C-alpha cells in the first residue's frame, strides 16, 4: 500500500517516464496525475495519448517529455489506438517475438473521452483489450480554449456555454462517464482526483492486477479554465471531493467501494465559490436556483453511491 514515502521512492525510480521540459501551464494538475499513474506500474509501459493539452505540451517536434514509448494519432481514437498496440503485442507474443510483459496506458481528456472518443472507448472496452484508460477530466475543452464538453458541470461558464444576461452558463447536467464504463462490466473502474494521489496510486495498482480494460476517471484541475489561482489545483480538487461533487470510489468486478468518505460533507458552495467559472451563479436568483439544484443532484448521487456500495457488498 503506497504512502508518501513510497510515492517519493517511486518518483526516484520511475519518475523519468514523464520528464520535465513539457510546456503544460504552471499549476496544471496533469503532470502530477501522469507521473503518479506511470510510477505506479511496475512493468514497462506503452502510452497512447489523445490530442489535447498533454499531447501538445509534451511532444512538440523535435522534443519530447516522454521516456516511454508513446503514440499520438488523433483526438477521438486513443482507445482504438492503444487497442491496436495491444493487439500487436498479443500477436507478437503468440509468435514468440516478444517474451516480456508490457502494459498499455491511454491518456485522454474529458472531451476526447466523454464526447468525441466515446464510441472508440466503448468498442475497446467491449472487445476486452488489456489496457488502462486514464481520463484527465478538467471538465471542458481546455486545449482549444475552454469550450463546454459533456463533462462540464451545469451552470459553469465555458466559452461555448458562456454566462450571459439570459442564460447563466451551461444549461445541461454533466454526463456520468464513470457509470457508463461500469455498464460495460469491465474488471475495474474508478474515480480519483489529483487531490488524493495516494488513493490514485492505490487504484492504479489495483487496476493493473487485472487483464482486460480498466478505466480511472481522474479529476484534474485547470486553473486557467476554471479561473482559479495558479496554486489551487490540489485545493479545488479536494473541495470537489469533500463536497461529494466528485466522490472517490472504485468498482471492482461490479462491487462498489467508496475509497474516501468525508467526515463532514461540505456544502457545494465551498467548491463553487473559489472558481471564476461559477462566479455569476452567486449574482442572480436564477444562479442561486442552479446552486440549489446542483446541491440536490450531489446529494442524490451520493446517496445512490452509498446504496450501490451497500447493495454490491451484500449489505443492502
Amino acid at each position, binding site marked *: 500500500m503506497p504512502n508518501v514515502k513510497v510515492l517519493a521512492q517511486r518518483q526516484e525510480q520511475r519518475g523519468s517516464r514523464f520528464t520535465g521540459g513539457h510546456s503544460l501551464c504552471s499549476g496544471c494538475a496533469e503532470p502530477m496525475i501522469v507521473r503518479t499513474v506511470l510510477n505506479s506500474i511496475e512493468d514497462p509501459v*506503452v502510452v497512447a495519448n489523445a490530442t489535447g493539452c498533454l499531447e501538445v505540451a509534451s511532444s512538440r517536434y523535435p522534443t519530447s517529455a*516522454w521516456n516511454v514509448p508513446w503514440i499520438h494519432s488523433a483526438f477521438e481514437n486513443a*482507445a482504438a489506438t492503444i487497442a*491496436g498496440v495491444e493487439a500487436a503485442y498479443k500477436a507478437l507474443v503468440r509468435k514468440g517475438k516478444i517474451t516480456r510483459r508490457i502494459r498499455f496506458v491511454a491518456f485522454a481528456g474529458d472531451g476526447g473521452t466523454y464526447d468525441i472518443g466515446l464510441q472508440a472507448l466503448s468498442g475497446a472496452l467491449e472487445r476486452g483489450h488489456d489496457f488502462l484508460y486514464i481520463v484527465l477530466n478538467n471538465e471542458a475543452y481546455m486545449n482549444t480554449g475552454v469550450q463546454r464538453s459533456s463533462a462540464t458541470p451545469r451552470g459553469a461558464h465555458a466559452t461555448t456555454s458562456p454566462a450571459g444576461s439570459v442564460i447563466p452558463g451551461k444549461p445541461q447536467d454533466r454526463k456520468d462517464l464513470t457509470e457508463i464504463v461500469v455498464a460495460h462490466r469491465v474488471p475495474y473502474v474508478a474515480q480519483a482526483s489529483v487531490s488524493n494521489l495516494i488513493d490514485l496510486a492505490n487504484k492504479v495498482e489495483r487496476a493493473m492486477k487485472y487483464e482486460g480494460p480498466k478505466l480511472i476517471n481522474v479529476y484534474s484541475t485547470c486553473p486557467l479554465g476554471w479561473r482559479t489561482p495558479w496554486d489551487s489545483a490540489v485545493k479545488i480538487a479536494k473541495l470537489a471531493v469533500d463536497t461529494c461533487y466528485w466522490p472517490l470510489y472504485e468498482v471492482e468486478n461490479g462491487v462498489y467501494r467508496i475509497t474516501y468518505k468525508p467526515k463532514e460533507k461540505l456544502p457545494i458552495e465551498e467548491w463553487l465559490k473559489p472558481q471564476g467559472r461559477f462566479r455569476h451563479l452567486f449574482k442572480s436568483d436564477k444562479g442561486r436556483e442552479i446552486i440549489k439544484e446542483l446541491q440536490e443532484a450531489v446529494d442524490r448521487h451520493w446517496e445512490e453511491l452509498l446504496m450501490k456500495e451497500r447493495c454490491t457488498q451484500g449489505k443492502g
Partner: protein
Amino acid sequence: MKKVMTGHKAVAEAMRQVEPDVVAVYPITPQSEIAEYYAQYVADGIVRTELVPVESEHSAMSACVGAAAAGARVITATASQGLALMVEILYIAASMRLPIVMALANRALSGPINIHCGHSDAYLARDSGAVQIFAESAQEAYDYMLMAQRIAEHGDVRLPVIVNLDGFTLTHSSQVVETLPDEEAKKFVGDYEPLYPLLDVDNPSVWGPFAMPDYYFELKRAQQAGMEAVPEVFLSVQDEYSRLSGRPYKGFFEAYKLDDAERAIVVMGSTAGTAKVAVDELRSKGEKVGLLKVWLWRPFPRAEVADALSGAKAVAIMDRALSFGNMGALYLDITSAFAGREGPAFVNYIYGLGGRDVPVEHIVQVFEDLRDAKAGELRYLGLRE
C-alpha cells in the same frame, strides 16, 4: 493453382498467405465477405493473426495505426463510407510512414446512398499519401495484394498501399484465379522488420508528435520522398512477382493494342476488361484503337503515361467519379502531364456512377465519338438525359 473464386475470396487468400499479425476490420457492403473469410480463418486456427473486430472504420484505421507503430504487419479492408470514415486516420498513417495494406472494394459514396461500384471512395483518399493501385480482375486483386505488401514495406517507401477492386463487379463475381503455393507466396512477401517499434520498450520511440510551422513543412516534404521512391520499387516488385507467378506485370499501366492506336481510352479497374472486348471488336474491323489501363494511380506515372499516349490523335479519359466543379481527377492527372508538350485531343468521360452498367456498345460508341473529338469536353457515358 487455378480455382474459381470471387474477388473477395481472392483477396482473403492473399491475406491468408501473408498472415499479418493484426487485421482490424469493420463490415461494409461490398467488402464484408473479405472480413468474413478472414474471421473464419482465425476461428479455424488457419492463421495466427490477432483479429480486431472494431466498432467502426475510424477505429479500424486507428487500430491499424497503433498496431503498425507497435511493430506488427497489418492489413485492413473497407469500401465507400468506411473509407470516408477512415480518411482522417489514413492521412496520419501515411505521415507516420506506416506500411498498412488495404483492400478497397470500390463503392460510390453517399448520397444518395448506393452500394454499387464507383471510384469516389478512392478519389476521396487521393491526396492522403497512400499509394493506390487499381485491379482489373480478381486475379490482379490477388496479385497486387501480395505485391502491395512488398511495396508498402520497402525501406524507401514505408507508406500505406490501397489495392482497389471494383465493388460487386470484381468482389462478388466468380472468376478463375491462379494462386501461388503458400510457401512461395510467403517467401515472396518475406519477414517484416519494423522500424522503431513502440514495443521495443528499451528504446522508447515517439510516434505522432506535434509540429508547428518551424517543422511541419519539412516533415511533409520528407513524406513526399516516400512517394517518390514508389515507381522504382513498384517496377522491381512487379518484375520479381512476374518471374515467380508467370503472369506478366510490367509497368505502371497495361498498354493494350496502344502502340499504333489513333484513338485510345484510359480507364481504371474492371471496365478495362469491357474496353478490351471493344478494342478487339474494332481492331477486327481494321480500326486503330487501343487502351491504357492504369495500375498505379498514386503516385501518378505522369511521364510514362504521357509517352504512351503521345502517338494518339484523340484520347477518352474515363473517370468513375465526379470531381464537382472541374474535370475528372484522372483527366486532370493526364492532361497536366502534357503541359508544355504537344498531345492528343483529350475528352473526359464520367461513367458508371453508382454501379451504372457499362456495356461493350458504350465503349464502342466512345471510340466512335473520338473520331471528331472536341478537346476539353466533359461527357457523361450511359446517362439518361
